[in-house]
């Protein structure tokens, strides 16, 4: 417990930081609500003919949007940005010799940000959506268990991807901010906005081989009852595979990076 204390402190600080700029909070809430409604209007307009498209009806799609919003706040991490800035400023050498793990601190900070984001942003939005749109019931209460498991795996996949891209800045810094490309790829190919089951078959097949769909689409799909038990278990297995693979890659890359810093001075 004692060893965890510095990390918990970082977690608290970063949760608190979110509250500092109230203008940001109000405008952030406003914009998130606006974007949610734009999406709702889009799907209502698309489904104006009624019925089921690609196996999903309007009500399931609206639930999909609200749960996706939940995941977006849960998945807010900035390990890549933090690493990048630390490398730019040259603080990273100091960070590596601190008596605590720098990645542990970033993880604690990200969890702190996610928790406060869920409280400050998602909670009001959830209440608003429940009243103005619909209450996002899961297809069956028991599905909440695999949903949360899969959401946590999804978080780990994203966080490790972020840490990996952030660490790659040791070599790629001069080429600009690759985190940006990563963010775009995630938002497009994870089904965060538009589920990829609307995409042509061949694109779906490619995306199923990438980690992105296992971050947003899998947990939300479980929630709205799109997958059977077999598919859920298979999906969780694939997630675990990605977590392990990314973790190993991350270990290799971060070892190399530390060596680079300690030998060449960054």
């Amino acid at each position, binding site marked *: 417990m004692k060893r965890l204390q510095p990390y918990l402190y970082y977690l*608290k600080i970063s*949760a*608190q930081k979110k*509250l*500092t700029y*109230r203008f940001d*909070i109000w405008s952030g809430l406003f914009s998130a609500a606006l974007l949610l409604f734009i999406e709702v209007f889009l799907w209502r307009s698309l489904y104006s003919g009624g019925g089921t498209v690609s196996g999903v009806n309007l009500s399931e799609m609206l639930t999909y949007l609200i749960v996706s919003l939940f995941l977006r706040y849960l998945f807010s991490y900035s390990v890549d940005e933090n690493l990048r800035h630390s490398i730019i400023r040259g603080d990273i050498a100091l960070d590596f010799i601190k008596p605590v793990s720098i990645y542990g601190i970033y993880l604690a900070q990200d969890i702190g940000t996610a928790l406060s984001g869920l409280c400050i942003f998602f909670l009001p939005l959830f209440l608003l959506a429940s009243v103005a749109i619909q209450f996002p019931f899961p297809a069956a209460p028991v599905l909440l268990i695999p949903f949360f498991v899969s959401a946590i795996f999804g978080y780990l996949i994203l966080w490790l991807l972020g840490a990996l891209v952030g660490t790659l800045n040791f070599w790629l810094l001069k080429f600009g901010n690759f985190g940006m490309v990563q963010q775009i790829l995630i938002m497009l190919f994870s089904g965060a906005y538009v589920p990829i089951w609307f995409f042509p078959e061949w694109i779906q097949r490619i995306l199923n081989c990438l980690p992105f769909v296992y971050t947003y689409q899998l947990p939300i799909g479980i929630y709205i009852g799109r997958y059977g038990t077999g598919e859920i278990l298979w999906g969780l297995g694939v997630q675990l595979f990605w977590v392990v693979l990314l973790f190993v890659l991350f270990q290799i890359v971060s070892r190399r990076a530390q060596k680079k810093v300690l030998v060449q001075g960054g």
Partner: protein
Amino acid sequence: MNQTVISVSDLVKTYQVTKKRPGLRGSLVGLFRRERETFTAVDHISFQVSRGEIVGYIGPNGAGKSTTIKMMCGILTPTSGSIEVCGHSPQQDRKQVVQHLGVVFGQRSQLQWDLRLGESFELLKRIYCVEDSAFRATLDRMDRILGIRAFIDQPVRQLSLGQRMRGDLAAAMLHSPQLLFLDEPTIGLDVEVKHAVRDFIKEINAEFETTIILTTHDLADISELCSRIIILSEGKIIEDDSLDAIIRKVSPYRRLVLDFASTPPELHLDGVETESREGNRLILRFDRDRVPAAKLISDVTSRGAVRDLRVVEPDIEDIIRGIYRS
């Protein structure tokens, strides 16, 4: 010729600052309510500066030095009071005033970070509409004083702090301003570059009669350069005089340190106090106006066998610290 370049009267600048509450609870409350309070940075100050003066504008951090300078440049608007720089108000006739101004902020470069130094000079030449011949002449002169040609083709971000400061000083002089504001120009510089900066200030003051206002924490800058010092504390002027006069006023004493061959004799002289007596060493403190040092020395040496002696001036740093504290 005693031409007034700057005239400041009854100047006040206040800021509104929001108070932040501590802790998570405080942050939450702050989402809905915020307290504001008024902070007075500059508090009813008045002074005049004549052409050709080098004025040291000093004071502890947060005393309001930079705020005053920014108001004189037209960057900030005074809450009340008036400023006239080169016959214009910097607020109403900003463009006329800044045409006569050169400004260097020691902590913030005005050069184009990404581009070579010369590129910044070219841009400034166009901004201030400097003629080609005048531009070349100034550059030559700046190269002579500051040696800028040695690094004029390097990008500013690759320059050392000292080179960058020299570049900034040259940049401020390109349009031959009558008046130069230097805000901590020697901050963080090594001894040699500090020297170059001081030489630069002396030279342009002597050559062009440029009026210079200098803020600094380095008292060597002051004692070497400034004919006059204005000391600011908590927004108020507490001293405005020559360095000598301030020293005389605050600390009119000098010390005479004497080493005798044997135990020092007892002395009872008018205007002289014994500060300490330790073994064969005697330290006397005397009033510089009442007791001439030469007379005191001859008095003392006639009373005992003096092996060594020196006159010690009061330490400026101690004096200034004393003024800040009071």
